[in-house]
């Protein structure tokens, strides 16, 4: 079963590896009240906690909402998603900086950890599945980690392949994980050509048409993205998340 959520987001954690062992387990304790949609629930505490990057307050607010029989899908739609949208807007406006982004993403991730079993039971889909990696020859990973954290905080399932990733590893991960998006990172002009090599490997393996490719990193430009045939250039983490959302919605 697939749930179409507001803001064109879908969640399905049924395939999440960490949930495999729990598929046949007893119902989640928070499921005891059989949640039903509560459209008038006040999510302001949850939104404020996510905006402030306060993970304990965010999980407490989410727990409170679930105890009030709020549908977890609604919690995502009306609580988390608008808050993360606002975080992205504040970052773009220069009012938030990377640490604020990361703290908000961490708060959201912890809420997802709390509600994931309930979303699994509902058969909801993640926003999308993203394979991320720093291309072969490059060891920089902090920018890639930032993008990964932001994507997870926005409901994406992220498969992080790490640094110095060979093209065939991207191909294997796309096939195995059924990813819709691939994110390639490079921080050196000397390793940017490995992005092109990776795209060529995707084409050779016949998986290029299955995925959208976003590239990023300090020396990368929109012109380079276009030249090598990537689908998009992510100038920063907030832009990358926005692009990923748009690309999976197509």
């Amino acid at each position: 079963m697939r749930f179409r959520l507001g803001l064109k987001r879908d969640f399905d954690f049924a395939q999440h590896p960490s949930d495999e062992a729990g598929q046949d387990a007893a119902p989640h304790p928070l499921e005891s009240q059989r949640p039903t949609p509560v459209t008038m629930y006040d999510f302001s505490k949850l939104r404020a906690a996510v905006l402030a990057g306060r993970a304990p307050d965010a999980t407490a607010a989410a727990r409170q909402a679930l105890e009030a029989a709020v549908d977890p899908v609604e919690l995502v739609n009306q609580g988390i998603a608008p808050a993360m949208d606002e975080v992205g807007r504040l970052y773009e406006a220069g009012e938030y900086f990377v640490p604020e982004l990361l703290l908000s993403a961490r708060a959201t991730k912890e809420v997802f950890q709390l509600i994931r079993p309930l979303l699994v039971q509902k058969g909801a889909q993640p926003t999308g599945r993203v394979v991320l990696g720093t291309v072969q020859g490059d060891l920089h990973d902090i920018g890639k980690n930032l993008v990964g954290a932001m994507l997870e905080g926005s409901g994406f399932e992220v498969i992080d392949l790490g640094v110095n990733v060979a093209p065939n590893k991207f191909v294997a991960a796309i096939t195995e994980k059924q990813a819709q998006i691939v994110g390639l990172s490079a921080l050196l002009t000397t390793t940017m050509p490995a992005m092109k090599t990776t795209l060529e490997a995707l084409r050779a393996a016949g998986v290029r048409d299955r995925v959208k490719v976003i590239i990023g990193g300090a020396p990368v430009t929109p012109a380079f993205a276009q030249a090598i045939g990537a689908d998009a250039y992510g100038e920063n983490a907030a832009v990358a998340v926005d692009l990923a959302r748009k690309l999976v919605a197509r």
Partner: protein
Amino acid sequence: MPALEKPAPLASETCIPLPLVPRMEEIFRCLGYARRAAPPAAIARAIERIVAEALPLLQPRGTYSLYALEAQTARSLSLGGLVLEGNIGEFLHGAARVAVFVATAGAEITRQAEVRCGAGDAFAGWALDAVGSWAAESAAEALQERLDRHLSAGEGLTLPYSPGYCGMDLAEQRKLFRLTRADTVGVSLLPSLLMEPIKSVSGIIGLGPRAAVATDLTPCDRCPLIGCHMRR
């Protein structure tokens, strides 16, 4: 293939360790905060805790070799028998001697950042990485202060320039590594021209008459990476 012999410098020095004095505003800049912006108090406290955790992990060290400037054009510098190409020739206008340096914060800070990221704490990972960036920059600055002993009366230093940023193609990194003893501080150059440990800075700086080399600019003013979060 036998290793190429290193050119003989006028002087050289290896400093282990180099002194670091944490300045929170500089660490905030490395974390991505814009000039004159500061984090909210709660985030600042969280960052300060991570800085305290990070400081014992830092291994600041550096080495430099000083060369006479053999020839110079707007697009090149000749020293130690090698020619560095790019706008660096123009940027070091007025220099009489050139120091080639490599400084590092060591590998442990990056390892710890990876551990924290791997454990799902991207905030701590980012902050540790930023401390590493600050420490590598600061180690390079501390190393540059050691060059004062080579200045004659009326002389000063140019701005420092690094391969891959401004005035020098990243490929020039190979020449810099021939001109300095990076191995003495545990820094090596990978085939991709990435330095290992990753939190390392290499570069060149000119020494010459103060009137000829003085400037109010920073290297960032000459760097085309306008979106760089480390921009001063």
